[in-house]
């Protein structure tokens, strides 16, 4: 491999890796926020609903 090949390999993996990590992080955060919101809504609904056993 030539010097330029090593430069391309280094920059592609490092910059591409940072980009992929950032994109995955944003996606994970969005999913987690949606899950948190759904859980909170379900908890609120459970609290406001009358207890069926009583």
């Amino acid at each position: 491999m030539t010097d330029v090949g090593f430069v391309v390999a280094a920059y592609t993996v490092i910059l591409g890796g940072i980009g992929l990590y950032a994109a995955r992080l944003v996606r994970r955060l969005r999913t987690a926020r949606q899950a948190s919101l759904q859980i909170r809504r379900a908890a609120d609904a459970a609290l406001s609903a009358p207890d069926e056993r009583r």
Partner: protein
Amino acid sequence: MKTRVLGFAGLAAVTAAAIYGLFVVPADLNQGDAQRIMYVHVASAWLAYASFGVTALAGIGYLWKRDLRFDAVALAGAEVGVMFTAFAIWGGMMWGRPVWGVYWQWEDPRLTTTALLLALYVGYLLLRRLTDDPARRASRAAVVGLIAAVDIPIVHFSVIWWRGLHQGPTIGDPGKILNPSAPLLFVAALMAMVAAFTLVWVYLMIRRYQLARVDWQIEEHGRLGRITAARRAGMAPAATTAGNEEPAS
């Protein structure tokens, strides 16, 4: 919104720094084009140090204040630091092959201590998965994070303390700060990449911290849900029994 702007600013800065380092700055007389790898390699290594330093400081903060927000900061530092350490090693290998003739040499103290640093913080991240109890997890992680941080100065000063394949500091040497041995054009390209990577690093740290906080909230909801369900399950037979009890005669 501000974090998103920071992300776009980081992306623009990295693009500009990469264009400058790859196409504007001339190739080094001795190392040729391979020298351009130094810009991303050194920036990755410095931010790995910064990340693990944040993890250690946040660990101290947690042990002192017992506030789980410190633990979220520590986790962000460790995960982002592992990524930057891996990229520093990769960049070093891609530079080492054309310049040294080898990708890796275990006898070199800088390379070996950096590999150890990576292993320590991968271990830190694995350790965090051993327990679901947030307080116990944070305490253990804080202690391990502090122990692992001992390797940071060892990595940095290894090129001064021991003889190896890796060259001594070009920029970080106190005697060379005002008169670096590298030409200013190269130093400017390196500093531009470090500044650009730092913007991205701040963005990633904030996002990872936010994710850790939301994950913790989900865990907490799950735990509260299980406790409530267990209490209801425990109360239901008791209530039934109480309702069927014969009045004492």
